C-alpha cells in the first residue's frame, strides 16, 4: 500500500479534499460526466415499472448472502473446485499478492494482462508484479490510461473520468511515441493496437469477480470492451480476484443482479459482455483468490453490515454532489465517493480514515441511487458516531473542547448573548488579520465573509414586531 494514501488524517486529508476545488477544468469535466451518467441511469431505470421491487429483492438476497456468508463461501469453493479450479484464501492484501506471485512463478509468467479489478487496486498488485520482474498491463482502456499516467483511478467504473482527449493524446505521445491526436476514434485505435500484441503473448490473465455463484460455482464477470474476454481466454492461466462479499446464493438470482448492475453502472440494459466461467479446462487453468482484507471488520459491527452489499456499480459516486466537485482522489484510497466513505474506514480502520464519513452533506442521493438499497446516509451517521468515540482523526482534544464550549453557550440565554456578542466582534476583525491560520484559514482564504449586523438582528426585529405574532 502506498504510504501517502494511508495518510487520511487532519490537514493532509483537508488538503487532498480541497485540491480538486481549485482546478476548475479537471473538476468541471469530471462533475459534468458524473452528472450525465447519473441522469442517463435514471432514464434507463425509468423504463422499468418494477425498479423499486427489484431493488428491494436484491437487498433481501444480499442480506441472506451476508448472513450465511460462511456457508455460501464453502459451497462456492466446493462447487468451483469440483470443476477443476483452485481456490486460495487471503487474509490481507499481502497474502493475496504472495498467492499471485507464487502462481506466476509456477507457470513461468513474464507478462500479465489484467481486466478491471478493484480488489487488485487494494492489493497494489501492479507494483508487486513489477517489483518481481513481471510485466503487468491494465487492459481496460480507462485503467490503461491511468496506469500509463502513473495515477490512481478517480472512479470505480470509469477510472480516467478526469482526463480529456487532449490529455490522453499527450500521454500517448509521451509514453508510446505516437503522433499527437485528440480524436477519440484514433486514440482508442492506438490503445487497441498496443494491447493486442500483449493479449496474444501474455502468459497469465487476471480479472475481478462481479458475482461468485455459490450453488453452481460459477464466476460472473461483466464488461464492455472485450478486454476481460481476451484476458481470460487467451493466456493459459486465469487468476480471478474476489472479495469475500461477492458470493450470491443461487444461479437463479443472477438475472436480477445483472440487470441492476448494468442499469446502475453504465446505464445499459445489459453490459456488452457478460461472462460466466465454469472452472478449468485442460489448457486453461483457473485460480480464484478470495480476499478478506478487513471485510470481516464490517461483519463485526451489525449496524454496518449493509456496507458489504455493494456490487460496485458507481451510481452513488455519479449522483454525489461532493464527489462531483472533488473527484476520486480526495477520498485517499481505492474506493471513492459515498460508498468509499463507508467502506474505507472499515477496511483501513477509523484511526486512519475516520474523517471520511464527515465529507458528506448527508443529502441521501446516494441511498436513492443504490441498486441494492444500502442506507448509505445512515451508515455515514453511524460511522460518525463511532469516529467521535473511538480513536480517529476527528476524536481530538481540540474538537471535544470546541463542542463542549458550544454546548455550554447554547444552554442559557445569557451565555448565548455573551457568545454572540464575542463572535460578532471576532468576525469583524477577520478581514484585518495579516494571516489566516489552520482549518479556519482554508475557509476564509477562499470566501468573502458575509456582512455582520451591528446589533442582534432577530432580537431587534422581535422587540418591534413580537406583539403582532399570533401564538
Amino acid at each position, binding site marked *: 500500500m502506498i504510504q501517502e494514501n494511508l495518510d487520511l488524517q487532519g490537514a493532509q486529508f483537508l488538503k487532498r479534499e480541497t485540491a480538486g476545488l481549485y482546478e476548475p477544468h479537471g473538476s468541471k*469535466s469530471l462533475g459534468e460526466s458524473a452528472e*450525465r*451518467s447519473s441522469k442517463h441511469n435514471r432514464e434507463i431505470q425509468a423504463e422499468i415499472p*418494477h425498479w423499486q*421491487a427489484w431493488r428491494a*429483492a436484491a437487498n433481501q*438476497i444480499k*442480506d*441472506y448472502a451476508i448472513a450465511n*456468508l*460462511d456457508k455460501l*463461501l464453502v459451497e462456492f469453493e466446493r462447487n468451483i473446485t*469440483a470443476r*477443476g479450479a483452485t481456490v486460495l*484464501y487471503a487474509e490481507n492484501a499481502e497474502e493475496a499478492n504472495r498467492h499471485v506471485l507464487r502462481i506466476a512463478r509456477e507457470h513461468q509468467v513474464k507478462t500479465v494482462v489484467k481486466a478491471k479489478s478493484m480488489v487488485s487496486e487494494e492489493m497494489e498488485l501492479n507494483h508487486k508484479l513489477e517489483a518481481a520482474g513481471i510485466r503487468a498491463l491494465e*487492459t*481496460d*482502456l*480507462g485503467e490503461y490510461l491511468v496506469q500509463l499516467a502513473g495515477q490512481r483511478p478517480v472512479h470505480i467504473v470509469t477510472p*480516467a*473520468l478526469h482526463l*480529456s*482527449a487532449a490529455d*490522453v493524446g499527450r500521454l500517448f505521445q509521451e509514453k508510446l511515441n505516437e503522433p499527437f491526436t485528440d480524436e*477519440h*476514434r484514433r486514440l*482508442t485505435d492506438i490503445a*487497441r493496437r498496443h*494491447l493486442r500484441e500483449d*493479449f*496474444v503473448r501474455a502468459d497469465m490473465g487476471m480479472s475481478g469477480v462481479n458475482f461468485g455463484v455459490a*450453488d*453452481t460455482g460459477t464466476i460472473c464477470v461483466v464488461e*464492455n470492451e*472485450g*478486454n476481460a*474476454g*481476451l484476458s*481470460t481466454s*487467451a493466456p493459459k492461466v486465469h487468476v480471478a480476484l474476489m472479495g*469475500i462479499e461477492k458470493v450470491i446464493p443461487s*444461479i*437463479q438470482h443472477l438475472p*436480477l443482479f*445483472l440487470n441492476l448492475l448494468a442499469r446502475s453502472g453504465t446505464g445499459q*440494459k*445489459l453490459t*456488452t*459482455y*457478460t*461472462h*460466466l*466461467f*465454469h*472452472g478449468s*479446462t485442460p489448457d486453461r487453468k483457473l485460480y480464484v483468490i478470495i480476499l*478478506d482484507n478487513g471485510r*470481516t471488520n464490517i*461483519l*463485526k459491527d451489525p449496524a454496518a453490515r449493509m456496507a458489504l452489499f455493494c456490487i460496485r456499480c458507481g451510481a452513488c459516486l455519479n449522483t454525489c454532489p461532493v464527489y462531483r466537485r472533488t473527484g476520486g482522489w480526495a477520498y485517499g484510497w481505492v474506493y471513492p465517493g459515498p460508498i468509499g466513505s463507508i467502506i474505507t474506514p472499515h477496511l483501513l480502520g477509523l484511526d486512519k480514515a475516520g474523517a471520511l464519513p464527515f465529507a458528506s452533506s448527508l443529502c441521501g442521493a446516494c441511498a436513492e441511487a443504490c441498486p441494492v438499497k444500502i442506507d448509505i446516509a445512515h451508515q455515514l451517521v453511524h460511522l460518525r458516531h463511532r469516529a467521535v468515540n473511538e480513536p480517529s482523526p476527528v476524536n481530538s482534544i481540540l474538537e471535544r473542547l470546541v463542542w463542549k464550549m458550544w454546548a455550554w453557550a447554547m444552554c442559557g440565554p445569557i451565555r448565548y448573548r455573551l457568545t454572540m456578542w464575542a463572535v460578532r466582534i471576532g468576525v469583524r476583525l477577520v478581514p484585518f488579520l495579516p494571516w489566516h491560520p489552520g482549518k479556519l484559514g482554508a475557509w476564509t482564504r477562499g470566501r468573502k465573509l458575509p456582512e455582520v449586523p451591528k446589533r442582534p438582528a432577530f432580537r431587534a426585529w422581535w422587540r418591534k414586531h413580537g406583539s403582532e405574532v399570533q401564538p
Partner: protein
Amino acid sequence: MSSRDAILSRIRTSLAHDAERPLPPVPEVWPRENPTVEQMAGRFQRELEEVHGEVVRCAGMDEARAKLAELAAQESWDAIGAMDRPLCREVCTALGTDRPSWARADWTPQSMAALSAGVIEADCLLADTGTSMVACGRPEERLLCYLPPACVVVATADRLVEHLPAAWPAIAPRVADPQLRGEFVFITGPSRTADIEKILILGVHGPKRLIVLLT
C-alpha cells in the same frame, strides 16, 4: 490455522447471533408479455441496432449462406474462423471449399490474431436486450468471440426468447451441470468504450462489428 479457516471462523463468530432466515425467492417482478416469434425478432433487431450491432434477417438457410458470402466478399475477409457446429457448417458452405477454417485445438492466440472474422453460433437470443448467448467449450471458441475484428453470429429464430429471466429456466440447469467447462457469454453489441470523456467508441479491444444472421 490456515487463512481459510481463520476467515471462516471470524465470519462464524460475527454471525453467531443471527437468526435463521429463508432463502429469498426469485422475485416474480419480470413483466411477461409472451410475444410471437415475429414480434421478438423485430424487438431483437431494434435493440441490437440501438447498441450499434447489425441484424440480417434471412428467409432461409440459402439466404443466410448468400448473405455471409456477400459480406465476406464486400469486406474482403480473407481469413475466416468458425465454430465447428452444425449451424455454422450449414451457413459457411457457400464460402468455398478452403474456407472457413474450423476452430481446432492446435490454434493459438497468435495464429488466431490474423483472422479477419469469426463465425459463432448462438444458443439463445434475448429479444428485449438484443443479446446473443454463446456457449463456448474450448478456448479457441471463446477467442472467436473476442479476437477477430468482425464477429458473425448465426442463429435460428426459434432460439429467440423474451428476455434474460425467460431464458433462465433453460440456461440455469446447464450452468449447474458439474461436467460443464469453459464459458457462457452473453454478447450485446460490438465491443465498446466510453472511457475517454464518456464519448462512445466501438471496437476497442473486441470486435468492431457484430452481425447477427437470423434465419
